[in-house]
């Protein structure tokens, strides 16, 4: 198990007070994680010692910057067991990962009448780009529904995956239910009908060991800011054959081989997809985050989150009037989403915030999921490697106080 106190000391913000005298209890890691000292130090060192534009310079700073930036890419490739670092494309966030595939692969491969299969538990990032693509091309978007326990209704898979399905994209882990989906099984089902399969790993890579080759997915994307890395950086992974066949997404410097007034030719992977000055400090920061997580061990992190999630679901279920959404702890990641009868989630979040507790309230960028649940908003507490049972106890106590405040 983790030495959680030692880990907490790695995160400067965890010793900050939310309000004077009120320590911060950060239970919003699923929205964005906090950053350990090493990651901040790596970015700071970059700016103080080797900051320069990459790839194009012969001077020392530019070489050092290029080496650090590309070394980070290699670390990230290893972290998700990508066959080669040229398949690791730096993007801003998971959202850009989806948009890159929708614009580049999608506009080349999706035609009128083709089907795109998603699920009803997707984040907007894995809904809107495909809806936009489908609208442009006259394609059809279909959705796998979920069951009352927040798991996918796999009995519908056979009917929904057909030879018309050109793309199948789904989340590895739901950001609302925490549901851990059977990725390999879904990838295989997609491949069986000839679909290209993309996995939303935004809530998976930060929390469990991910192996893209074991998943066998064609594309996969995630965000750095949810995994101890900085904002402004994310990763798109793709199979080489697909990435090579795709036209570029954005045009500009670095992504070209040659530009003339008549036209241009493209650079090799991964740079073909990285136009303009990249997010250099951010790439380096993410590389350091990956080192940090790997040093602790993704299996250890997962085990700790399992433990916390069990504890939290148990404790929360004692609260009167609470509804908990999603599967049992053993089938989910470190997320506990709930409503309390008679108190709007916004009010819950606002009241517990005054106890220093950061949870999220709203639709969590999953409006269709909430429409299906027939609630306009839920409250969500989410956990990470630094979460303690004491923090869960504080949340429960604060929620009980909130009920009292609302005279329930």
């Amino acid at each position: 198990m983790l030495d959680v106190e030692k880990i907490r000391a790695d995160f400067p913000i965890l010793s900050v007070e939310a309000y004077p005298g009120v320590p911060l209890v950060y239970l919003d890691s699923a929205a964005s994680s906090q950053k350990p000292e090493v990651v901040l130090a790596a970015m700071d060192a970059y700016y103080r010692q080797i900051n320069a534009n990459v790839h194009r310079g012969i001077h020392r700073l530019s070489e050092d910057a290029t080496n650090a930036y590309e070394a980070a890419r290699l670390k990230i490739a290893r972290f998700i067991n990508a066959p080669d670092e040229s398949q690791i494309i730096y993007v801003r966030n998971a959202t850009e990962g989806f948009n890159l595939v929708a614009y580049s692969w999608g506009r080349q491969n999706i035609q009128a009448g083709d089907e795109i299969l998603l699920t009803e538990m997707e984040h907007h990032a894995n809904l809107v780009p495909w809806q936009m693509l489908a609208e442009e091309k006259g394609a059809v978007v279909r959705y796998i529904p979920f069951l009352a326990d927040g798991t996918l209704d796999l009995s519908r898979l056979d009917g929904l995956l057909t030879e018309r399905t050109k793309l199948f994209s789904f989340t590895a882990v739901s950001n609302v239910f925490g549901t851990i989906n059977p990725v390999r099984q879904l990838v295989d089902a997609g491949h069986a009908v000839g679909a290209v399969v993309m996995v939303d790993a935004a809530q998976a890579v930060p929390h469990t060991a991910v192996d893209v080759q074991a998943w066998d997915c064609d594309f996969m994307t995630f965000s750095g800011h949810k995994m101890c890395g900085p904002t402004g950086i994310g990763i798109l992974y793709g199979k080489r054959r697909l990435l090579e066949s795709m036209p570029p997404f954005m045009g500009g410097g670095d992504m070209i081989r040659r530009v003339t007034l008549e036209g241009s030719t493209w650079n090799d992977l991964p740079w073909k997809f990285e136009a303009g000055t990249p997010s250099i400090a951010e790439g380096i920061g993410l590389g350091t985050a990956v080192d940090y997580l790997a040093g602790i061990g993704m299996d250890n992190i997962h085990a700790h989150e399992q433990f916390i999630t069990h504890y939290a679901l148990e404790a929360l279920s004692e609260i009167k009037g609470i509804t908990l959404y999603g599967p049992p702890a053993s089938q989910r990641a470190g997320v506990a989403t709930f409503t309390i009868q008679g108190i709007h989630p916004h009010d819950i979040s606002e009241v517990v915030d005054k106890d220093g507790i950061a949870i999220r309230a709203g639709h969590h960028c999953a409006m269709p999921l909430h429409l299906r649940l027939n609630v306009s908003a839920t409250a969500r507490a989410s956990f990470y490697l630094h979460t303690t049972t004491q923090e869960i106890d504080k949340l429960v106590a604060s929620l009980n106080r909130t009920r009292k405040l609302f005279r329930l």
Partner: protein
Amino acid sequence: MDIYREQIIDLHEHPLNFGELETADFCHEDDNPLCGDIIRIAINLDDSGRVYQVGWTGSGCAISQAAASLLTETIKGMSLTDIQTFPPERLLDLIGVPLSQARRKCALLPLKVLQAGVSGAVSTDE
């Protein structure tokens, strides 16, 4: 715990002017999709064109609900022009708790609904 004033909790338990009107001179509904709050306000005017009856329905957080109660109570007797020029700050003052940018949207939803309703009624008249 004084995050929310007693009054806001009171209004949450016992909203003012809550309910549909049998008939209404005009009514309007809108929502704040980002948080899911939804408000519908119905108005009856007297012969001099002033509000004499108002009812609201909807669902949302304590702030938007309290705002609906307070606003509908305040506008009784007002002319449509009074409503159209009703300053948002006045509603925030009525609520009387400090609100973040995000919650301000909740607080102002009833006013947005009301003013849109009035605009609709006025332009239909013309």
